[in-house]
């Protein structure tokens, strides 16, 4: 412990500390300070995304390639990109999206929206089918009994695989609605519910850890960077 207050002289740190305390004040009750911090966050985020999107994507990947001389306006040493007229198509689609700004031109935005949804759905269907369905089935097809290099049964690993297999089967049984859950079938489905409860518990535990991590970080900032107590 360094002992004593060593307040930061940085304006940036003071603004950060003030905004942190404003947000924390919501724990007491809703108040104007919290509202102010909330609005500042929303406004700054929107402006940041817009400006960054223009300078990192729209300018170098569209404007500079349609009008190569433009690249030198911002970075004189930059290599002049070659013309790429094919980019006119996405640029036009992007401009059509702005049709949403007026009720009479909303229909124009349906074309780029349809394009975006269609291509995303097509790409995602193939990828999800391959990685989330087929690859997961492959991963689940593991032998339940594992032997060590000495030929003995690797008890821990075998048990782990058996639980994985059992949990998968019980979970699938629970979500099988074409057969009524009765008798032994219901007991297997019930075990599936137990496995799911364990999963939800794990997720909740991880969530608690994540939230506490954020609190630890903010308090570390307030106590260390701002107040200089550590």
């Amino acid at each position, binding site marked *: 412990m360094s002992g004593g207050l060593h307040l930061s002289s940085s304006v940036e740190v003071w603004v950060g500390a003030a905004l942190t305390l404003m947000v924390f004040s919501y724990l007491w009750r809703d108040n104007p300070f919290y509202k102010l911090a909330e609005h500042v966050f929303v406004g700054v985020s929107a402006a940041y995304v817009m400006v*960054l*999107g223009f300078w*990192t994507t729209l300018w170098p990947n569209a404007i500079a390639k349609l009008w190569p001389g433009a690249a030198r306006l911002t970075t004189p040493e930059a290599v002049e990109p070659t013309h790429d007229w094919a980019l006119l198509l996405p640029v036009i689609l992007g401009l059509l999206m702005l049709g949403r700004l007026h009720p009479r031109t909303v229909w124009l935005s349906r074309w780029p929206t349809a394009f975006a949804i269609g291509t995303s759905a097509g790409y995602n269907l193939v990828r999800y089918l391959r*990685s989330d369905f087929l690859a997961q089935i492959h991963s689940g097809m593991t032998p339940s009994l594992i032997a060590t290099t000495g030929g003995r049964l690797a008890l821990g690993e075998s048990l782990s695989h058996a639980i994985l297999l059992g949990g998968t089967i019980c979970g699938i049984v629970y979500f099988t609605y074409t057969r009524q859950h009765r008798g032994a079938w219901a007991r297997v489905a019930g075990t599936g519910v137990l496995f799911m409860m364990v999963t939800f518990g794990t997720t909740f535990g991880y*969530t608690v850890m994540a939230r506490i*991590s954020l*609190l*630890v970080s903010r308090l*570390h900032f307030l106590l260390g960077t701002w107040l200089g*107590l550590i």
Partner: protein
Amino acid sequence: MTGTEHTAGSSRRATGLATLDRRWIYLALAAAIALSIVARIRFPDTPSPLVQAAYDRVETLPPGASIVMALDYSPSSRPELEPMAFAIARHAMLRGHRLILLSTWDTGNAMIARLCTEVLRREFPERREGEAWVALGYKSGNEMLINAIRQDFDSMYASDMEGRSCADLAVLAGVESLADCTLIVSLSSGTPGLKEWVLFAGDVTGVPVVGGSTGVGTPEFLPYFPRQIRGLLGGLKGAAEYEAALELGHPDFHQRTMAATDGMGPQAVAHSLIVLFIVLGNVGLLLQRRQRRGT
């Protein structure tokens, strides 16, 4: 104490616990964490198999291997993911690998800039920018960006964050697409993130993917280990374990900051307090039930 007094006392305790203002709990939690931060409480950590697998993947790559590291997170998840980025970047630099930094998140540029300033330029000045590492930064497009650079880096990244032409950078020599990379590291707190890197890059190109996720997202990625994700760092604990692995594997190297290890002490104290509150809440419930039966 007579039987009536005893019942009245239990009743008051039960009612007190049931009506306890939640703000006392917030205050107790904040105080416990603040005290443990000031007291610098630390607990030793050992790498779990998930984290060890990620560490081994970086450790066993031949020097000069090109690693794509995607920092797909925002300031709100920085406390969990930045220590991972710092530890993995240090490890890559120590092992002589080439690091290509990019992001599919618009907030990624600031995260990359912090990594460059705090770790790469400050701790490894001999590993020069453009030769040992490059910050390509953010581009929009989400998973379509990953899809595009899977085929051709140049189509999306003509220059780095400083405006230098990628064609002139030695670090990118021989790297024309994601398939030319040796490892993909995705540190993510949402979509697009680790899942998209597995779906659109790792599973398609065969380039191994190692990931780090916030605590909230970690359970979602566990089924991908070990076939589709070769190593996984889950939340602050995962980051602390990686720092421990780096300490064990490279004892001569001093890690200037170990934010995750520092954060796990207060974390453990907070968890203990939460468990205590859960126990107290249940005791209160039992007392109330007994009270109801008594009346």
